[in-house]
């Protein structure tokens, strides 16, 4: 703040409050809709909470939506959780290992491997969906958790983050531990891994959100309804005839789909901002 301007201060807060309204209003409306009976929101708009909160959420979690085969949303959330955690654990472990190899070892073809990983930075899933689908189908991984997780865990971003971080660790640390007789395993587990804790936490937040919010890939590889993830499950709830469209159930599912990643962002705000800013560098 350079100078005191009362009108500008008022304007600042008004703008920010408008921002909060823009950001929160859709979620408020969805939450309100999820507390009403289906017929109450079919032709009219509800501005305030109804009385069916507990009933609707119990229905959603236990039996889902009748018009889409009654897959319970609890099962969908479980599938999403397994997928998200699989991606988080898989990506972090394979990339920390490969970054370790690239930074701390000298071996033939080191740069070739480095470039091989680097290339993946340029190929998002969306542009090679058909052939990747064929590979997964040939491996018999359709409708399985590995089929959901494996194609999404190879990406260069996490490897680069770890590589950049390892390069900032003083050489003296590695030398000192070598003098003390620590081999590569000891050095990795006792020194490198503890030092990487904050980076791992930041990556955890970003990758969990990335994994939980996947849409196109689960849509392709899961054809059995009990493998549906929640984000793609909502889509199936939308396309039913208008007069039986239970918006309250759909909106309750949307709220449940947002809940885990939003909670993680609020609880781990600092790691989230760090992860976001660093993975993009």
């Amino acid at each position: 703040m350079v100078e005191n301007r009362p009108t500008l201060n008022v304007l600042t807060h008004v703008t920010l409050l408008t921002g909060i309204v823009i950001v929160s209003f859709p979620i408020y409306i969805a939450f309100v809709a999820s507390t009403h009976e289906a017929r109450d929101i079919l032709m009219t708009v509800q501005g305030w909470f109804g009385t069916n909160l507990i009933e609707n959420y119990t229905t959603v979690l236990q039996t889902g939506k009748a018009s889409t085969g009654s897959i319970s949303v609890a099962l969908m959330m479980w599938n999403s959780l397994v997928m998200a955690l699989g991606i988080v654990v898989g990506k972090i472990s394979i990339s920390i290992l490969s970054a370790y190899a690239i930074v701390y070892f000298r071996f033939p073809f080191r740069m070739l491997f480095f470039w091989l990983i680097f290339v993946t930075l340029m190929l998002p899933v969306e542009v090679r969906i058909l052939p990747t689908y064929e590979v997964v189908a040939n491996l018999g991984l359709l409708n399985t958790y590995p089929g959901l997780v494996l194609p999404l865990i190879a990406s260069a971003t996490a490897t680069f983050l770890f590589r950049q971080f390892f390069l900032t660790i003083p050489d003296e640390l590695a030398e000192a531990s070598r003098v003390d007789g620590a081999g590569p395993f000891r050095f990795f587990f006792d020194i490198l891994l503890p030092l990487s804790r904050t980076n791992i936490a930041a990556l955890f937040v970003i990758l969990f959100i990335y994994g939980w919010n996947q849409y196109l890939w689960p849509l392709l590889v899961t054809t059995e309804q009990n493998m549906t993830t929640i984000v793609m499950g909502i889509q199936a709830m939308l396309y039913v005839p208008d007069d039986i469209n239970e918006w309250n159930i759909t909106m309750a599912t949307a709220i449940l789909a947002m809940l885990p990643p939003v909670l993680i962002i609020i609880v781990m705000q600092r790691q989230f901002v760090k992860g976001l800013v660093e993975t993009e560098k």
Partner: protein
Amino acid sequence: MEKRSTFNNLWLPYLLLAPQIIITFIFFIWPASQALYQSFLLEDAFGLSSEFVWFENFEVLFSDPLYFDSINTTFIFSAATTFLSLSTALLFAVMADRVIRGEMAYKTILTWPYAVAPAVAGVLWLFMFSPSNGILALALKDWGYDWNHILQGGQALVLVVIAAAWKQIAYNFIFFLAGLQMIPKSLIEAAAIDGAGPAKRFWTIIFPLLSPTTFFLIVVNVVYAFFDTFGIIHAVTQGGPYKSTEILVYKVYNDGFIGLDLGGSAAQSVILMFIVITLTVIQFRYIERRVQY
């Protein structure tokens, strides 16, 4: 930059690299080369026979008015989404940078929509614009404007742009705020002493100094609008009505999985790959420049 002190081991580095290399090869390199190969093939829908046709798939694609429509839609969609999202985020970030009281609360609330999946963001806005019971659709109707995105292509495009931009505000806000906080306060104070008001300070000092961040965000937002918005399009409009919201990524999916035109879809994938690679190279060149700063 290289490490001076390294470990010597014949097999360990290969073992450490193996998981990532194997997965990269199976799920990235092989499928991408397959896409490239298939784009030169003419295959029947059952995959029984195929014929090598060189660039015929690309020729067909570039003589197809529908493909140009899709390119056109993608450009309008990504330009509108990027502009809308960046300008609102910049406004909020500049304001959040000014406040002293309640900064943390504002920041937390404005950042958490990052966690909302694009498809879910689409569903939220779809509900509010639902012609028979959406709060915004009915409000528009009260003002005498007939909203029906199920029939009106232009309105459907507006709807997906709003949903896509809304979801991205949080991301842009975080980066703009970080960029604003890196601008030295002394510069702004000096300008204030010289008599420049807040608006003048913004346009002559803050906005130019923020341009690296803005440029970086433009690239990221274009990539987002090109690829990550598939969920919004698929959940909200399915490319319709009359293909008015069919962006390129959606067309790859639609032609390949629904229309079973494998060669055509692969050719589209290859073109998209070139677009991504170009955007990535632009981004990297920019980052190199920033490092030298």
